[in-house]
């Protein structure tokens, strides 16, 4: 299967994209100071006394950050560098004392409406990016999240590249997400057409969650988000992660069932919720959830491999590959690469199951045809046909009028057979008619009086064709008549809320047992196969000798 090469291909692709070129800058430690002096923007300001951290900057006070940066390589002419910042708050950006950008209104947040965005890119004038030391100063205020001071992300590169790279990256990721969206829809429809297949539904939901996760992650490239709203995005990501982290191992647990499944899944869910609720450092939460998901899935799949379950080995490979990717790429990339690998593994499993189902279906068709043939064969198998014909010849030679009646009885049985041969369920009254005509024939052949009794039959109840007939045939062949040269049969029907029960009794003297009696005959196999065909597992069948002859019970559960 080509799917085997896909993970490898994906891995190569990711490694190529992950190895970007060397950075053009080197960033040093940022220092903080609450207060507001325009001189703090200057390149040569002495910030020796400034703090390394400030935990809280309440009431939207203005504070300053100063970060020394070395430019390692001057930009090409006409090609200015830019700086991309991921900073909470509304702020102004100074480069070597020169104001290069403004993102909102620092210090006036409580008065003015929210302005500015989380991820902002500013161009740096070419004359300020010579090789050597520079200073990045930010004048900021944190009215909405006073404990989120500091620079969360910083990137310096050609200004144009900074803008375009991000768009290119997110457009690729959106293509990627689209694939999962389509997959999700496809499997949703597949589920809707066969509502018993929960695995397809779970896979569909996983794909959809993954699609939204990618969207939530890359939405920042084109949708400006004010820092006060950013928590919504992070919470969304957290919830999506929670869903995915639960569903993937849940899916594997369905495909590779293991002992104490419910208990372990409950514990796992507990762990996930603990991680989700305990800390509010979102990146870490996501990370922990991803790791627990990975560990739990890994455990399940290893169990699957140990039990030699189908497809487990390839899935294990994808899971191991995903961890390998986790080592060589940054977290946000490995998260998506790893997830998509695992989703591919799930996809593979699903395709295996679909294949199995198709084979099972084809098998059931074959089985149905076989049963139909089996039913037809009853009347042309030599034992029935030749013995009947021999008797018939004899009747015609010896008592032609009786011979005609015999032929009529035979015609009736053939006619009934024609009516039922292609059906899987028939009214019990029809089956009883078949038994009657069979008894009539056997009376001519065996010259034994057969009696038929019924109790509690509801004529419209459906049963598979030929099963009572088979039991009747067994009753005839395996028993000797009573002293009055008769064999009696009795069919009793009982029904309750939970089940319907047919009891078929033969009253006769039994033939001395031989060793062949212990072996299950083709007749009983036919009965069982017919019951399975129509009721799957929901039936019971017993056949046992009794004092007066033989007792068969067929129980069909609703």
């Amino acid at each position: 299967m080509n799917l085997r090469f896909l993970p490898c291909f994906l891995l190569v692709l990711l490694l190529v994209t992950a190895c970007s070129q060397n950075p053009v800058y080197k960033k040093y430690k940022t220092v903080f100071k609450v207060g507001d002096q325009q001189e703090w923007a200057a390149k040569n300001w002495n910030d020796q006394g400034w703090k390394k951290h400030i935990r809280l900057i309440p009431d939207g006070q203005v504070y300053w950050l100063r970060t020394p940066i070395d430019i390692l390589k001057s930009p090409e002419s006409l090609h200015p560098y830019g700086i991309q910042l991921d900073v909470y708050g509304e702020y102004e950006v100074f480069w070597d004392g020169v104001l290069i950008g403004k993102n909102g209104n620092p210090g006036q947040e409580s008065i003015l409406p929210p302005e500015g965005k989380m991820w902002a890119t500013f161009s740096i004038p070419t004359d300020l990016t010579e090789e050597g030391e520079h200073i990045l100063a930010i004048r900021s205020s944190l009215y909405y999240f006073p404990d989120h001071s500091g620079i969360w992300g910083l990137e310096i590169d050609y200004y144009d590249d900074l803008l375009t790279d991000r768009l290119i990256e997110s457009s690729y990721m959106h293509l990627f997400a689209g694939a999962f969206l389509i997959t999700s829809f496809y499997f949703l429809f597949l589920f809707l057409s066969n509502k018993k297949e929960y695995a397809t539904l779970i896979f569909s939901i996983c794909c959809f969650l993954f699609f939204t996760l990618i969207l939530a992650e890359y939405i920042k490239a084109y949708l400006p988000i004010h820092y006060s709203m950013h928590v919504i995005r992070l919470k969304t990501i957290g919830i999506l992660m929670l869903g995915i982290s639960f569903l993937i191992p849940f899916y594997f647990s369905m495909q590779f069932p293991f002992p104490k499944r419910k208990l372990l899944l409950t514990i796992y869910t507990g762990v996930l919720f603990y991680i989700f609720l305990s800390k509010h450092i979102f990146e870490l939460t996501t990370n922990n959830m991803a790791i627990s998901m990975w560990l739990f899935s890994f455990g399940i799949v290893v169990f699957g491999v140990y039990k030699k379950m189908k497809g487990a080995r390839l899935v294990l490979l994808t899971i191991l590959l995903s961890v390998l990717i986790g080592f060589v790429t940054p977290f946000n990339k490995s998260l998506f690469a790893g997830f998509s690998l695992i989703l591919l593994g799930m996809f593979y499993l699903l395709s295996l199951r679909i294949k199995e189902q198709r084979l099972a279906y084809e098998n059931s068709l074959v089985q149905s045809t076989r049963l139909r043939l089996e039913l037809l064969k009853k009347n042309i198998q030599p034992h029935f046909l030749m013995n009947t014909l021999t008797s018939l010849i004899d009747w015609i030679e010896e008592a032609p009028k009786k011979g005609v009646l015999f032929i009529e009885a035979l015609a009736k049985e053939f006619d009934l057979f024609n009516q039922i041969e292609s059906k899987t369920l028939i009214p019990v009254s029809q089956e009883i008619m078949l038994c009657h005509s069979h008894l009539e024939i056997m009376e001519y052949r065996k010259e034994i009086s057969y009696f038929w009794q019924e109790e509690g039959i509801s004529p419209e109840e459906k049963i598979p064709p030929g099963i009572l007939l088979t039991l009747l045939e067994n009753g005839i062949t395996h028993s000797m008549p009573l002293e009055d040269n008769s064999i009696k049969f009795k069919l009793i029907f009982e029904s309750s809320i939970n089940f319907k029960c047919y009891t078929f009794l033969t009253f006769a003297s039994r033939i001395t047992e031989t060793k062949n009696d212990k072996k299950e005959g083709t007749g009983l196999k036919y009965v069982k196969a017919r019951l399975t065909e129509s009721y799957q597992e929901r039936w019971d069948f017993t056949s046992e000798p009794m004092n007066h002859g033989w007792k068969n019970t067929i129980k069909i559960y609703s």
Partner: protein
Amino acid sequence: MNILIVEDESRIAKRIERMTRDILGETLQSLTHINTLHEALFFIENNALDLVLLDLNLNGDNGFDLLTTVVSESFHTIVISAYKDQAIAAFEYGVLDFVPKPFNRDRLEQAFNRASTKEKTENNKIKLLAIKKRGRIQLIPIDDLLYIKGAGAYTELFLADGKKELHDKSLEKLEQLLSHTFERIHKSYLVRISEIKEVIIESGSKYIAELKNGERIPIGRTKYKDIKAKWL
């Protein structure tokens, strides 16, 4: 003749019975009908019979168990069965004839003729001889058999490995079954033709057949001409 009919279909059994009486007439001494395997085995053990007419499928049982027992007995067996595909297997076990159902009087008469007139069968399919040994039935491949010596009512089978076994059937009955490969060269001997190396004429017009293993078996004076004709 003493005849046993083993058949579980009453109407068919009656038909066989009627026809048998009709065909055999005065020569019939006793005729018994049994419809279960178990009773049939019991009856065979305790009664002297000349012929058994056997249905192979009794009450859903496979009649081959019964078949191996009856073919080891002194009497001939004729199978009457609905399953034509069992004919070959039945012949391999050494039944005298196989009458498929539905049958008519002529076919049954033909079978009886084989039994009563000592007519040789066209059974070239026989592969096994069933013998009774220590209460059990043992099947001997015909290919292992070199020659058979008549010993009163029963016979001695001489095998390729030097062993000797007893069979309940008379030399005449075995000759009927084995006629396609064995030759009656003497009133007491039935020999596999392919085993004869040469025919030696000794003084006093004594004819001896020397087998490939060196054994010497006398050839009957009357039989010599036939054999000579066949050999030359």
